[in-house]
């Protein structure tokens, strides 16, 4: 299990091909990459603030919970902070399991929890000079309820 919190970009192809390399007990690898989206062509950049120390702890505990719930052979989470431009990769989650259902479900679980329980905050800077902290969505909190049982 690997957790990385960094300002640098990452090569998702290299991460994926290096992931769980050489193992023959895996039946499925699922990956998700989050990208900075510019919906109306108005976004200049985004700054992601985080809580050093707590961020790594929170992500690690989310990963540990995923490994308790699903039989995961391995798991990788990369999350960036600092300045990002539209089209930049923000984060990546990769899960490996013997079977695809566990790999897909664990990846979704990780994404849902990273959104609402990892201490990151996004600030948007638009091309016209205005700034805005991105609000958490009610849907994001609702998404956690399906994992409650």
């Amino acid at each position, binding site marked *: 299990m690997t957790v990385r919190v960094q300002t640098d970009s990452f090569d998702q192809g290299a991460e994926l091909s290096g992931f769980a390399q050489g193992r023959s007990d895996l039946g499925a690898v699922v990956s998700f990459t*989050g990208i900075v989206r510019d919906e109306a062509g108005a976004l200049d950049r985004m700054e992601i*603030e985080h*809580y050093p*120390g*707590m961020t790594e*702890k*929170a992500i690690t505990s989310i990963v540990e919970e995923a490994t308790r719930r699903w039989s995961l052979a391995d798991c990788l989470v990369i*999350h960036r902070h600092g300045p990002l431009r539209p089209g930049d990769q*923000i*984060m990546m989650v990769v899960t490996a399991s013997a079977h695809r259902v566990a790999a897909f479900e664990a990846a979704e679980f990780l*994404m849902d929890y*990273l*959104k*609402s*329980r*990892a*201490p*990151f*905050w*996004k*600030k948007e800077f638009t091309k016209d000079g205005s700034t805005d*902290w*991105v*609000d*958490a969505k009610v849907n*994001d*909190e609702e998404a956690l309820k399906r994992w409650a049982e």
Partner: protein
Amino acid sequence: MIDVMYFAWVRERIGEPRERVETSAATVSELVDELRAREPRYAAAFEDLSALRVALDQELTDFDASLEGVREVAFFPPMTGG
């Protein structure tokens, strides 16, 4: 003495990322009341607690939590990772 940290718009409203606070507050709520009474910028930051989250020693908790033995308190808006 306790370390108090602020993130995102809470940090911007208060004007600093962290400070050492001399307090006898027993709970997070009592600490919030003390901070609110200090200056208008604190009152503005802590105006609506439903818009805030709190972590004690880097663990998410709630405003009723005890501060006993706690070294680091952090206040921030709901998280927006992913």
